[in-house]
């Protein structure tokens, strides 16, 4: 891991394993600064976007890796570049619009220009004016491009890393978890829209929440309330051997209705019933009976399949007590009007106003507000033991959350 640190931290992990974590991890600005270096600039693959967001040469979008502003661009040769969005001159943002198409990047401050791959191609008044001013003869333009990240495209997902040590993506998350990405993103994707949600908490609280398969049926009671719990649900939790990444999934048993590819909603209680069940319909488009699959790629990506609501969620830390969550809601190229309408209905379940997701917007903030009082007190994660083993058939485990802390500690060196 990162041995030379720009930051000093005397932080010591206070427990023998990763089944407890001190509240300090959510409240300490110094740890946040250290995370920038050891995690976000460390040997991880950070999600940057989808290939369909920048389909043409010259297309770009902006995003972040930790606190670093990033440009994701497609070069004239079709190759994808990830560049730090910070001019080599005085450090201004080179792109201040969220997306666009350009033939080259121009920093408007003093008009330095860069190629789509980040090479410095032009310096305004390089030779000065009237023989005065300008650059010294020994100024080497080739040394002053935009900082580049290594890029790997896995399927249609684009990742970037600052580190030379990050292993190939498939190795990073492992074959078993790659299989779910392959399973969900089976056709060319198209973006159906974006949500942005600001969470009043440290980024790790949302990262953990996604790995916390224990809370799902307890906090999000929409399904139970409306009696749309389906019997014979199977599923489980898969965890990469190092603990960093996970997949939590639910599979329902086959029933006669599968022939028509639509899911019957069964009402178990009489007290409340949905007036309109369209948002619970499920067209079996992926060739299996998986109804829910929530997958994390350490540190900040969530891949989501909830019925026909497909999405990637990108967790962007915004200081130690604020997080922005970007939801990119997806469909497939070739969806017909009916399929698109179905996706739009099902998307009522997710996003900042999602009927089964909105709670995750506030619970992290409740932890954050309580955590500050005593940063040495500890959160405990005892469900399902103290290890990081996978679980078949049950999601009543905090193993994947412990896996998150295992990864965090490995990278932070604590």
């Amino acid at each position, binding site marked *: 891991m990162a041995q030379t640190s720009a930051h000093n931290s005397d932080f010591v992990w206070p427990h023998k394993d990763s089944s407890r974590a001190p509240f300090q991890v959510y409240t300490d600005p110094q740890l946040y600064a250290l995370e920038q270096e050891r995690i976000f600039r460390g040997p991880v693959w950070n999600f940057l976007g989808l290939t369909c967001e920048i389909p043409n040469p010259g297309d770009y979008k902006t995003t972040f890796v930790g606190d670093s502003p990033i440009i994701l661009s497609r070069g004239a040769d079709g190759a994808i570049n990830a560049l730090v969005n910070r001019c080599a001159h005085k450090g201004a943002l080179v792109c201040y619009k969220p997306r666009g198409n350009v033939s080259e990047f121009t920093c408007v401050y003093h008009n330095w220009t860069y190629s789509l791959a980040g090479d410095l191609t032009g310096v305004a008044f390089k030779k000065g004016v009237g023989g005065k001013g300008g650059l010294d003869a020994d100024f080497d333009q080739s040394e002053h491009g935009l900082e580049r990240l290594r890029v790997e495209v896995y399927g249609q997902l684009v990742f970037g890393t600052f580190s030379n040590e990050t292993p190939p993506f498939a190795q990073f998350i492992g074959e078993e978890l790659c299989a779910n990405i392959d399973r969900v993103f089976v056709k060319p994707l198209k973006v159906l829209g974006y949500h*942005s*949600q600001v969470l009043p908490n440290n980024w790790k609280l949302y990262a953990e929440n996604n790995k916390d398969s224990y809370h799902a049926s307890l906090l999000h*009671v929409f399904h139970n*309330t409306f009696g749309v719990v389906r019997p014979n649900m199977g599923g489980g939790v898969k965890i990469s051997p190092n603990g960093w990444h996970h997949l939590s999934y639910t599979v329902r048993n086959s029933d006669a209705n599968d022939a028509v590819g639509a899911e019957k909603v069964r009402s178990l209680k009489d007290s409340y019933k949905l007036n*309109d069940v369209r948002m619970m319909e499920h067209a079996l488009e992926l060739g299996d009976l998986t109804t829910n699959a929530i997958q994390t790629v350490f540190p900040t990506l969530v891949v989501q399949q909830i019925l026909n609501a497909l999405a990637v969620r990108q967790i962007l830390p915004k200081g130690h007590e604020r997080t922005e969550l970007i939801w990119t809601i997806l469909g497939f190229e070739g969806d017909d009007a009916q399929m698109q309408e179905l996706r*739009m209905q099902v998307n*009522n379940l997710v996003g900042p*106003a999602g009927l089964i997701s*909105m709670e995750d*917007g506030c619970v992290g903030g409740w932890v954050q507000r309580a955590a500050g009082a005593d940063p040495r007190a500890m959160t405990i994660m005892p469900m399902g033991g103290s290890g990081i083993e996978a679980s078949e058939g049950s999601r009543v485990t905090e193993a994947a959350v412990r896996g998150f802390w295992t990864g965090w500690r490995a990278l932070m060196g604590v």
Partner: protein
Amino acid sequence: MSIEQTLNDQLALHLRVNDLYADYAHTLDDDRLEEWPGFFTENGIYRIVTRENRELGLPLSVIYCDGRGMMIDRITAMRTANVYEPHVYCHATSDVRVLDANNGEIRTRSNFTVLRTMTSGETSIFACGRTFETLIEEGSKLRLRERIVVLDSRRIDTLLVIPL
């Protein structure tokens, strides 16, 4: 029709539309949410979208209700299932305009700001943007055949549970 008559009709319509906007806002701000679906026609459409998605031509909504049934489900879920910290809205609606009125269909628009106050007493600007409506006359009432709320404030703080 005389100019005076036309002007009177326009004024009357403008007042009715303004009253509808006010009643709608008061119903939400008074927490009389069970009455909210009644502002719409049976098959009325309610959407909250973001300006960004709309300008990119993307179909996603933050909330999408197609028909009163879905609106009732939203409110039932909010009252019985969803978990959130209690809060209230204060709508400030402005620049209400009747765009046209043809064949019994009235198209209107407005600007809005919603201030959100938590139980702590802390108030923040929660949302701002524009709304676009199609109204029709049902009996003696104007009802919403469609209301599209377009958020300029696309970055939603914490969560959105009460309709706008």
